[in-house]
């Protein structure tokens, strides 16, 4: 089981893996390649904030950035995606294949996994939000999401971000836990991340968001 929360502090195995990605992308970005990160989830899970923090951290690290968001109809409890592209020079704001997918909900991980670049990495929040179609018995919430994910890629990590956020008494900080975990994979300076969080969360919520980010980073 690839489940991580901060009770089994410092999982060396996961950190060796993320370091390999970080080194690869340090190199790729130097060569002018564009790094694409896709965030998926359900309206209200803080997807837009997560994309903004990543984008700002990348700008602070000296990269060109483009961000794509969905507004309007999609905000009424529908599935939501946001994406960030990072590079020396970025053209399309929307992604084709994601080098990283951060899914704030399990079903939304499965929905977007087809967008994962070969060799890309998937971070999944161990959290389920049932869609209306499940309650009306038109569909069933899949019971075997982890199995289906593992059949498609070995490069994934399931994170109990909500539990970690709840221990900090702020369920809304789950997105920061996920970002913290993601930060281990990306060649952006730690100071740029905290600077970006500082600029984008209200000051009274700053500490808990930084704590949540660090918990994710130290998984």
């Amino acid at each position, binding site marked *: 089981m690839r489940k991580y929360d901060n009770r089994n502090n410092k999982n060396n195995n996961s950190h060796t893996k993320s370091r390999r990605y970080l080194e690869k992308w340090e190199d790729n970005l130097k060569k002018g390649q564009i790094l694409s990160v896709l965030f998926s989830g359900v309206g209200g899970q803080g997807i837009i904030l997560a994309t903004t923090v990543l984008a700002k951290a990348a700008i602070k690290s000296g990269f060109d950035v483009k961000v794509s968001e969905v507004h309007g109809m999609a905000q009424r409890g529908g599935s939501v995606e946001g994406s960030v592209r990072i590079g020396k020079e970025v053209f399309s704001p929307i992604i084709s294949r994601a080098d990283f997918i951060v899914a704030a909900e399990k079903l939304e991980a499965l929905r977007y996994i087809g967008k994962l670049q070969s060799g890309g990495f998937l971070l999944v929040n161990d959290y389920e939000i049932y869609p209306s179609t499940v309650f009306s018995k038109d569909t069933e919430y899949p019971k075997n999401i982890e199995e289906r994910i593992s059949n498609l*890629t070995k490069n994934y990590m399931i994170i109990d971000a909500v539990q970690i956020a709840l221990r900090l008494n702020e369920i809304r900080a789950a997105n920061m836990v996920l970002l913290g975990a993601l930060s281990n994979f990306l060649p952006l300076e730690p100071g740029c991340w905290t600077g970006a969080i500082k600029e984008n969360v209200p000051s009274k919520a700053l500490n808990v968001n930084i704590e949540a980010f660090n918990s994710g980073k130290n998984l």
Partner: protein
Amino acid sequence: MDIKENLQLLTGNEAIARAAYEAGVKVATAYPGTPSTEILENLSRYKGIYCQWSVNEKVALEVASGASIAGARTLVAMKHVGLNVAADPFMTLSYTGVNGGLVIISTDDPYMHSSQNEQDNRFYAKFAKVPMLEPSDSQEALDMLITAFKISEQFDTPVLLRTTTRISHSRSLVKLGEKINPDEKKYVKDSKKYVMIPAYGRVRHELLLERWIKLSEFSENKELIKVYLPGRKINKAKIGIITSGISYQYAREIFSNVPILKLLITNPLPEKTIRVFAQDKHLILIIEELEPFLEEQVKLMGLGAKIAGKEYFPQYGELNLDIVDKVYRQLFGTELISEYEIGKHTLESGSRLSAAVIPVSDKNPDEPPESGNIPQRPPVLCAGCPHRSVFYILKKLRAAVMGDIGCYTLSVLPPLSAIDSCLCMGAGIGQALGMEKADPKLKGKVVSVIGDSTFFHSGITPMIDNAYNNGTGLIIILDNGTTAMTGHQVHPGVGKTLSGNDTLELKPENFAKAAGIKNVRVVDPNDLSLLEKVLRQELERNELSVVVCRRVCALLEKVDKNNIVTIDQEKCDKCGACIRFGCPAIQLRDGSYAIDEFLCMGCNVCTAVCKKGAILKKYKKTIKI
């Protein structure tokens, strides 16, 4: 620190608002509509600019035109279908021209992320002979709006700035500029310019045609055209791309070894530049979303090169990297292309996108192959939404519901499945009249439903038409005190203006009474039994009635968690009636019905839906939470 730190990460809409400030805009008007809404929302935060929500796009453009006549630089913003509403003043504004610069922003919505159609508004520019600029990112959105004001004043014409959803709602880096103070202009009486009686109109039309010739020359301006040349060898390439807007970004990323002509002005087209670009080329590939707008015009130029566009690219939806990459592979795999000396590209080095984990279906590259087995997550009416009970009752009464555009359109989806038509703003009220006139048997079975903001937008005139033509139907106005779908903008029923000033609070029922409609009632839709009684009575009545269902949007109400409900599992007989009410807070988990206490807004309407009395208030006494 890197220079990029000094740049701002802005959406296209934010960049447009910033540009309006920098260009010295004094008056700005709009009606909210995705993806244009944030332009005015952002602009209204700058000091010293008069911004207003107008009741609809036609009025917005008329107010803007007045401001321009008075000498102000003026901006008006609307979504693509809004320009249909404003088409009447738009067409003739091209004749009268402007005094202060006037720019109309049209935000088109290919793929219909949040719209009822995906019309290509570039044709409006051509139709009206109005110059049109198209930015390809936020920086260009800022630069082009400032240029648009210069063009407007230099050529005495309104200018159209067209974006698409991906420009309006994508963020990219923008360098801010300083505010400029345009030359002061004053109102000058000039009836031959502004009074379009036939005699003056004929003169203005001739002037318009002269202006068009000047604009055609001006379109060759270097500021409005960008040529991308990928290195020396490629200058000899026999293939070139002509593109504009967001399509440029896909073209530039995938066809990085091909010369690209990016047009920032797409009406009129810079024909000389296009001719020079096309010289010596065998193939000109036009990359554009939706209609073959550029392609047809370039074809008419009679260039030596073969012109291709829609034979490779779809005429619907958005383009993306996958679609453009597929064409790239197609072209570079053929004998035809090797002939064009682009040469050394094999599919290995040329393919921009390596294979994904799972091969993507040919039919729709956007849809992962897993999606067949994945429950959809459609948007739904929020927990506590006051619209829900109206559609719940209408479904019970088996009424044919002629709907409109707003959050409530979501009631078309299961489990409510209670909307039978949605055409454009205001349409439902007229459609209902047409149905009863066509088939008297439908009398008493057809209702029209419209929101409050939509009623002010275009519901009043069809209501008068019903009253005048002896309609006998039922018009339901869902008054939630806001323009909810686009993010809660104020409107004439709210008592506040965009800038937060107090103003008159107009009530839809007063308009109905003023139209002589005798049966006008106002109900609280959360009183389910009263609502059902009223709707039954008014539906059976053989006269025109108007029922205003008034309760503020659930997202604007303070939630009192003391009022949340719970399900008594002993009383519950699992009939599922509560689920058919369609509230996202009512859930079915492991065979039992339950309330998600986090989502429940405490409206308590569902307690009346359960015939067994199993849905109860959770707390008997008020407690502190």
